[in-house]
């Protein structure tokens, strides 16, 4: 799942080397924390969160096939 997020995000940003994803697992849920270079935050969120939501849509549809846990994506800023 981390690899999927990285694969989506790296081509969108100007500083792919600064893309990091960490998973935090709690009971019944996994939260992926995405951090990018400061100047790239807008590029992964987009107007009204449009880009972030597109990333989430893809992540969730894949997550459904892999785990019963609730999956979340947080963008750290």
């Amino acid at each position: 799942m981390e690899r999927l997020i990285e694969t989506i995000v790296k081509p969108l940003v100007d500083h792919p080397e600064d893309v990091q994803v960490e998973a935090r697992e709690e009971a019944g849920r996994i939260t992926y924390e995405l951090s990018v270079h400061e100047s790239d935050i807008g590029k992964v969120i987009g107007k009204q969160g449009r880009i972030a939501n597109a990333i989430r849509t893809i992540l969730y549809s894949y997550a459904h096939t892999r785990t019963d846990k609730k999956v979340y994506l947080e963008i750290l800023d």
Partner: protein
Amino acid sequence: MKQVTATGSTVDEAISQALKELNAKKEQVEISIIDEGKKGLLGIFGSRPAIVKVTLKIDPIEEAKKFIIDVCKQMDIDVQIETEIDGRQVYMNLITEKVGLLIGKRGRTLNALQSLTQLVLNKYADQFMIVTLDAENYRDRREESLRILANRLAKKVQRERREISLEPMPSYERRIIHTELADHEHVKTYSVGQDPNRHIVIAPK
């Protein structure tokens, strides 16, 4: 392909300026020096800036295809892509055995992948390009079912004389419904709300 002309007090400076503008590395570009510039007397009199033309060698279509293939691979989807380019419109047909997973509920996954692919494409394209992703004729089938839906709901609006709100849809899907009912005698359509929650309302005329 993207190209910029940049100036600097030296050729190296002009090149790094251009690379910054293109957001590219030196290996990804072709550089032609238009003017080497001149230092001039005491660095002031008769000095001339260096001018370089830098062209990005990255093919936006190839980058977009690579993006789709890479993302799909991470989702355990093997995909092949047929591409048709018509001016600024790029149509990509995705061929895979896992069509359902790729399209998602009401095209949600395909639409998400489409908007992300469009970003990648336009990161490298020198003019704004619009990409349509399709799989197993989903776009045509969706258009057909939206037309049927539009006409069915129009009848209902006419019969019950009250407005009906549809679920949120992306702009190209809303357009299909607006167009379908544009000449309707008894109902009119309009959109309310902000994307991604913008949706159509069908109302009695």
